[in-house]
């Protein structure tokens, strides 16, 4: 997944969780703060659940709780994608 695709998925998830803020969320950047975008705790859980479903992932609760910037979300996703990629590689080598 490219960086653009990761950012696009985060945007999609946030719009899903907070459709009334779609216009603002359209302009998010890596440095955007979720609090400043008006994403509350439930919005964050909803958005992460959306991403988890799309990626068949499960983000650790303690790491999810620390998410504040869009880039924190990106880091969680990259971590999952990397470990998943490693697993796929391992499966192939077996």
């Amino acid at each position: 997944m490219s960086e653009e695709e990761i950012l696009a998925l985060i945007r999609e998830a946030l719009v899903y969780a907070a459709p009334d803020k779609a216009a603002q969320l359209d302009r998010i950047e890596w440095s955007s703060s979720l609090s400043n975008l008006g994403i509350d705790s439930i919005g964050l859980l909803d958005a992460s659940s959306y991403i988890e479903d799309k990626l068949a992932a499960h983000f650790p609760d303690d790491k999810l709780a620390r998410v504040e910037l869009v880039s924190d979300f990106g880091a969680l996703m990259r971590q999952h994608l990397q470990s998943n990629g490693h697993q796929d590689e391992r499966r192939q080598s077996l």
Partner: protein
Amino acid sequence: MSVDRIRKERMYRTYMEFFEIAEKKRRWNIWDDIPWEKLNPALNDEADAVRIETFCGVELYVPDYTAHGFNMSRSIFGQAWFAANWGYEESKHALAFREYLVRSGLRTQDQYMDYEDQILSKVWISPASTMRQTSIYGAFQEIATYLIYHQQYQKALREGNEVLARVVQLTGRDEAAHCGFYRKLVAFEMEDDPQGTMEDLAQIVKNFQMPGAALIPDYEKRVQIEGVGLTRQQFMAHAILPTLRSFGTTRSDLIKIIRAQEARKKERREREGEAAPAALVAAE
């Protein structure tokens, strides 16, 4: 809502466990357990005043909180007696904060009385309309309050403010005990009616706000001061997620229920939207 005898008996036993610990280990009083003689006004500033005044304001709604608690629970001994004990403990919190504000000179007696008048000119209305919702709301609100006081306890210790540290330590300990009691009640509800409890849980969490949010003067301005409230990360990490775990559920389950509730709401709105023009035509 009628509660069967088995449940009543469980709640009675749960209350007795809570009350035994409260009576034997947790009781304190504002005269002997707070070292007022060590009060040093130089250790305080206006931000401390706003913080303590806000905590005091929230605790001052005890008459409304207890009225709601009693009305909801009067037919169930364990829960009604808990409401009485809870009200007693919370009333002591308001007293301790009031004494701290005035004795330290952070507020004059007149300033305090003006503030109290402002606070009590409004009435707290519970976001919960059943006992089950009250217990769920209580579990979140008590843990959040504990976390706020605990932060202040650590801050006061760092600053060498022994008196304030003791006040927030004692009040925080009570809040943690209240949270534990509510969590047990919600666990019973989960056993009896998991779906209904999850529906209530979703509704309470989605709309959760601290009791003072709509009542305390300038609340939005006050929460900008560090330590008056919790950050979203703190609330998530130390309140929402552990509370969900204590109820035996997960954030994914919660989100599924919230989404289903939202979908039902949308469907209802659409149905009503379609029905409205038809009703107008019929009226014509």
